[in-house]
């Protein structure tokens, strides 16, 4: 469990995080979303005590991170960029971390095996691909068998097999009752993995809700209908509160009317329908609806 309590963080004259409060609960995968520069990484760094908040506090497993006698057994973290010396082997990197908590050599071999790096563990990590580096970072995060796992952009550089493996791992960790917080800019990746999402924009909390709820609150669901007489159907559906789009000659996108209504209208006028689907808004759309202002604000600042 991570409790973020009214946390603000200032870097020079810029607020990276402002008055953020949220609780990340165990037993589910929480996605941590937000445009670049929205304060995700700053927040994660404060959770593990690398940065200290300008005001407010962050508790993990009931205490400030640095107050845990064996912090790696409470929290494991993969933070942005690679935290491995290029001249050191993967095994030596993990052994150095393990030595701080007197974890056994066997535990190092276990996490190497878990992330599939056993074969290359003796090689200098400077020659690792981005994906191998990520796997090593995940191994380091899991070294202490922690109750809370933080992963910043873990899917970066993983191949499709690796992404599938990662999803399974995140699910397994959550099912074991751990707190799992995963940041990502790959929204599609989140849609397939997260149960709950926390969305930041300009350092402020925009949403803290189950994924399904966020999706429902975003853009309205649209009905996609394909018909050889699409143009005729378009005139029939035209009415107050209904928005019509036509991405292709024989396809209509209908907002403001349900699939049932569209189907009834088509049947009443004898218009053949070849396809009739309710399209849920994508996470991208929901995300854009939430963060639109935040993104524009940032872009405006950059232009100036």
């Amino acid at each position, binding site marked *: 469990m991570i409790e973020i309590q009214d946390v603000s963080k200032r870097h020079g004259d810029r607020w990276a995080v402002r008055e953020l409060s949220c609780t990340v609960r165990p037993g589910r995968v929480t996605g941590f979303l937000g445009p670049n520069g929205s304060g995700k990484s700053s927040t994660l760094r404060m959770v593990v005590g690398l940065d200290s908040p300008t005001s407010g506090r962050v508790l993990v497993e009931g205490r400030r991170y640095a107050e845990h006698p064996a912090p790696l*057994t409470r929290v494991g973290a993969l933070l942005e960029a690679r935290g491995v010396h290029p001249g050191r082997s993967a095994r*030596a990197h993990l052994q150095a971390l393990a030595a701080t908590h007197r974890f056994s050599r066997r535990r190092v071999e276990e996490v190497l095996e878990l992330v599939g790096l056993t074969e290359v563990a003796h090689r200098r990590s400077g020659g690792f691909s981005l994906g191998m580096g990520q796997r090593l970072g995940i191994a380091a995060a899991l070294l202490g068998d922690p109750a809370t796992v933080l992963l910043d952009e873990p899917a970066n550089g993983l191949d499709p097999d690796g992404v599938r493996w990662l999803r399974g791992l995140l699910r397994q960790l959550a099912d074991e009752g751990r707190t799992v917080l995963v940041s990502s800019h790959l929204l599609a990746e989140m849609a397939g993995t997260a149960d709950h999402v926390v969305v930041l924009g300009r350092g402020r909390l925009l949403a803290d809700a189950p994924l399904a709820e966020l999706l429902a609150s975003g853009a309205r669901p649209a009905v996609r209908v394909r018909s050889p007489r699409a143009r005729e159907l378009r005139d029939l559906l035209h009415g107050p509160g209904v928005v019509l789009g036509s991405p292709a000659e024989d396809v209509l996108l209908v907002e403001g009317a349900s699939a049932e209504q569209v189907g009834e209208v088509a049947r009443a006028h004898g218009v053949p329908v070849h396809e009739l689907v309710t399209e849920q808004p994508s996470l991208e759309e929901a995300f854009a609806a939430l963060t639109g202002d935040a993104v524009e604000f940032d872009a405006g600042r950059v232009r100036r």
Partner: protein
Amino acid sequence: MTAPGPAAGAWSGAVRSEWVKLRSLRSTVTAYAAIAAVLAALCGLCLTLPGGGTEDPVFAALLLAELLVAGVAVLAAAGEFSAGTARSTFTAVPRRTPVLVGKLLAHGGALLAVLAVAAVAGGTAAAIGAPEAAGSPLDPLVLRAVGGTALTLLGVVVLGVSAGLLTRSPAGGLAAVFALVVLPVVVVTAPEVTAYLPGRAAQGLVFTGAPPEAHLLPGAAAAAVLVAWAVVAAMAAATVLRRRDV
């Protein structure tokens, strides 16, 4: 997944961790081998040249050893930040001060071990190579030169690790140590004042035959000055390390 064993104190763990890091970088191991060679030459010269010598070869060997040790120490600390390992290091040891102490003990210990081997090797080589010139290894002047070298290089380890943690930059840390240790020896200005800089205090500690106009501090005072520099540097590094964001 099986639960790892219980974690013991952060201090001993941090020392072990820094020792693993020291051993597992090829560049560090190579540097210590080079330091061993230079120190062996230094010890051999101390034995064969009369009076523990202000002689140029000893002078040059000490300076070279100081430079190499400074390089290893600065990189061990600043490298954490330039290579990005600082994040994992200080996540594992969030109280941070044990990392500083771990680095000092790991590198100080490695240095003493290397010096002991080098002293035996250098002494043996001197006894075999120049038996008529070689002094006794138990000559007080020789013992003082070796002891002074040990204290000097330990001081350089502390200065280097501290400067590396304070500047977080290999170049910046090296420049700081260079300015304190090497520069005052190479370019001697205001000798009465610069005698209190670590580089010249080290000379006062190692060399006994220096003329009075060199204005080197006498042995005990030189040792006290070196220790004071080391303590101040380490405390500054510990304070900044605890307060600053990683």
